[in-house]
């Protein structure tokens, strides 16, 4: 049975704060790990991580994977209200993404 645990499940921060979101996983036939941002619509793709220890960056967002300890971190610096969303962690195993419940982030002005 796949296990994907995201923490914290929910947090509220002020604009300008830094947010760190955690994802730990136990899946069989692991291939890579993906992060998505979901507002009230389709999940939008953020990152795909395949190798351990290599940070991927996109603007204020960055993410890293540790395949030995089976976790990933998503960081958001200098948060803005537009960062308010649910962030979904999804290890890719076999032909499917195994999603966690998500980290709900609320950024208040």
């Amino acid at each position, binding site marked *: 049975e796949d296990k994907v645990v995201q923490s914290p499940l929910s947090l509220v921060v002020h604009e300008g704060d830094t947010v760190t979101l955690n994802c730990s996983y136990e899946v069989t036939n692991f291939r890579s790990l993906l992060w998505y941002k979901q507002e009230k619509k389709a999940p939008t793709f953020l990152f795909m991580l395949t190798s351990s220890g290599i940070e991927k960056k996109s603007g204020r967002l960055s993410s890293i994977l540790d395949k030995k300890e089976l976790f990933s971190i998503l960081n958001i610096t200098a948060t803005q209200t537009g960062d308010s969303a649910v962030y979904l962690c999804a290890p890719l195993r076999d*032909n499917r993404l195994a999603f*966690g419940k998500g980290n709900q982030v609320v950024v208040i002005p």
Partner: protein
Amino acid sequence: GAGVSQSPRYKVAKRGQDVALRCDPISGHVSLFWYQQALGQGPEFLTYFQNEAQLDKSGLPSDRFFAERPEGSVSTLKIQRTQQEDSAVYLCASGKRDSTYEQYFGPGTRLTVT
């Protein structure tokens, strides 16, 4: 370019009715996936197509659920004799090549069974 589109965006069905949900993937994308997302949960895998071949249907919750992609582009997810527990958002995603590539999601169809 155009993203993944799904129709209808909202569907209300009476218990026992059959429904058909459509997905138009990004043009040229080989892989197509269906996921079911219950309220407050992450999406759960239903099925995977590579071109017209359904390579994995192990996530379909019962034999009332059926998916097809006859010409390797548009896909339809059909649910027969809908039950209240089928109420969820059904998400479709497509990918450039095989399942190891990133998946791009459509807006989903919210199905409510009354």
